[in-house]
C-alpha cells in the first residue's frame, strides 16, 4: 500500500522523532510513504491569520504537486499542517471564485483539487487490526523488549485534528468532532490502555509558543494536571506543536505550578513502534525531554 506523505517543516526539526517513528512503522505495517517532491510550508500558523489568499495558495501548491506526482491521498502527520491543507481543500471545493483565483495565483491551470488529506490518527485507526495482530506477535516473540502493554495513557487530540467539523469531516466523517475515538482505538491495538479524561480536545496554545509564553504555560498546565488526575502514566499526541508544549515545556510548567508531572509524551507513531518491537533509539525517544523509559515496563 502506498500513501503520499507531507512531512511539514516541524518534522525535520523539533518534531524529528515523529518523522523517524513514522518511517520505522510504515514498512512494518506494509505501507510505502511517497513524499511529495519539493513540498513547501503549509503556512500555519501565520498565513491564515494575516492573508487568506496566501494561506490558500501555500496549501494548494502542495495539493497541486501531489496531483502532478499522481498521489491521490496525502498523509499529513502534523495536526496544524493537516488543518491547513484540509481547510484549503475544503474552501477551494466550496468556493469557485477562491478556486479560480488560487489557480491563477499558482499559475497551475491544471490543478483540480482532487487530493484527499489524512491525519496520522485516521491512517493508523484504519490499520488498527494489523497493528493489533503484529503487536501480539511481537509480544509473544520477544519477552524482553520494553512493552507498552497495560500502560495507562491519556489520548490528547488537541484542537486541530478533528476541527472544524465542516472541514475535517468532509467529504466523509472519519471521527466524531466532539467525542472522537480513533486515537483510543489505535492505543488499544498497541496493548496500552486509554484513560477517560476531559481535556482531549483542548488547545495547548501552540500558536503562541514563541510569542505568549504565559498563555502557553497556563493551557499546558491544565492539560497535564487533568491527565495526571485521570491516572495516566503518559500522554499520547499526534502533533509536533503539542509535543513541544507538553514535553519540552513540561518542566518549566511544573516549576511554575510548584510540582512535578513526570508525564512522558509519546507520539502515537512511537507508541505503535514500541508495540511492534522497534527500539527506543530507532523511534527517536532519546530526543524527548521527559524520559520515557521509566514507564515502559520490561518483562523479566
Amino acid at each position, binding site marked *: 500500500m502506498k500513501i503520499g506523505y507531507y512531512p511539514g517543516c*516541524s518534522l525535520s526539526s523539533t518534531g524529528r522523532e515523529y518523522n523517524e517513528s513514522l518511517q520505522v512503522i510504515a514498512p512494518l505495517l506494509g505501507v510505502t510513504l511517497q513524499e511529495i517532491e519539493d513540498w513547501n510550508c503549509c503556512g500555519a500558523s501565520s498565513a491564515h491569520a494575516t492573508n487568506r489568499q496566501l494561506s490558500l495558495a501555500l496549501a494548494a501548491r502542495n495539493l497541486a504537486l501531489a496531483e502532478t506526482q499522481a498521489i491521490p491521498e496525502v498523509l499529513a502527520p502534523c495536526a496544524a499542517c493537516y488543518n491547513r491543507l484540509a481547510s484549503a481543500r475544503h474552501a477551494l471545493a466550496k*468556493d469557485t471564485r477562491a478556486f479560480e483565483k488560487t489557480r491563477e495565483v*499558482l499559475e497551475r491551470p491544471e490543478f483540480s483539487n482532487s487530493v484527499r488529506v489524512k491525519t496520522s490518527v485516521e491512517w493508523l485507526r484504519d490499520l488498527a487490526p494489523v497493528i493489533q495482530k503484529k503487536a501480539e506477535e511481537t509480544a509473544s516473540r520477544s519477552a524482553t523488549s520494553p512493552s507498552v502493554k497495560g500502560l495507562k495513557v491519556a489520548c490528547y487530540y488537541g484542537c486541530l485534528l478533528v476541527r472544524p467539523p465542516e472541514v475535517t469531516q468532509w467529504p466523509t466523517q472519519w471521527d466524531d468532532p466532539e467525542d472522537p475515538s480513533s486515537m483510543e482505538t489505535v492505543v488499544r491495538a498497541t496493548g496500552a490502555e486509554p484513560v477517560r479524561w476531559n481535556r482531549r480536545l483542548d488547545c495547548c496554545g501552540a500558536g503562541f509558543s514563541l510569542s505568549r509564553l504565559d498563555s502557553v504555560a497556563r493551557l499546558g498546565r491544565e492539560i497535564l494536571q487533568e491527565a495526571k488526575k485521570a491516572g495516566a502514566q503518559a500522554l499520547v499526541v499526534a502533533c509536533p506543536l503539542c509535543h513541544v508544549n507538553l514535553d519540552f515545556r513540561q518542566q518549566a510548567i511544573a516549576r511554575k505550578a510548584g510540582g512535578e508531572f513526570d508525564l512522558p509524551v509519546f507520539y502515537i507513531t512511537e507508541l505503535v513502534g514500541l508495540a511492534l518491537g522497534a527500539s527506543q533509539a530507532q523511534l527517536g525517544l532519546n530526543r524527548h525531554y521527559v524520559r520515557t523509559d521509566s514507564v515502559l515496563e520490561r518483562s523479566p
Partner: protein
Amino acid sequence: MTHTESKKDNLSAAIRGLTGENVARCYQCGKCSAGCPMSQEMKLKPHDLMRLASFDQADRIFGDESIWLCLTCETCSARCPNGCDPARVIDTLREMALARDPSRWPRAIGAFHAEFLKQVKNHGRVFELGLILGFKLRTGRLFDDALSGPGVFARGKLALQPHRISGIDEMRKIFEKCENVENRDLS
C-alpha cells in the same frame, strides 16, 4: 480603495462579503466564549467580537488586542449551536486590521507572524532556528526560554541549515501576488 477599506464603516457587510458569514445571526448565547481557551485573557471575548462586528463597531474591535489572542483552535466554531464561525470571523478581522494599520499588531505576535512568513518566502519552508533567532532579534527577547533550553542541539531538535526548495521562484511569485491587496479581495 480596496474592498476591505471601502467598507470599513460597514464592518458586518465587509465580513459578509469576504467570508459569507452573517455575524448578525449570532444570538449571543456565549457558548463560543465558554469553551474558548483564551477568553479569560481576552477583553473582548469571541461572542463580544461577534456582537461588536454585527453593530459595525470597527474602532472598538481594532482598538483592542483581543483578536490577536485567538489561537484559531476552532473550538468556538465547532461548538456554536447556531452554525456561526467565530474563528473565521476573527481571522478575517485580523486581516482587516492589518490592512488598516499594520502597526497595530501586538509586538511579539506580529513579530512571530512576520518572521514566520519571511522564512517561508525565503526558503519555501520554515527554518525553525532562523525563526527563533529572527523572532528574538525583532522583539529583543533574547533570554526567553523559546526553545533555547538545554539540550535542544544535543537532541538534534533544531536543524542547523535551512533547506531551500527548488520551487523557490514560484513561492516568491505566490507571495508577491498575494501581498498585492487587490488579490485579497476574496469572497
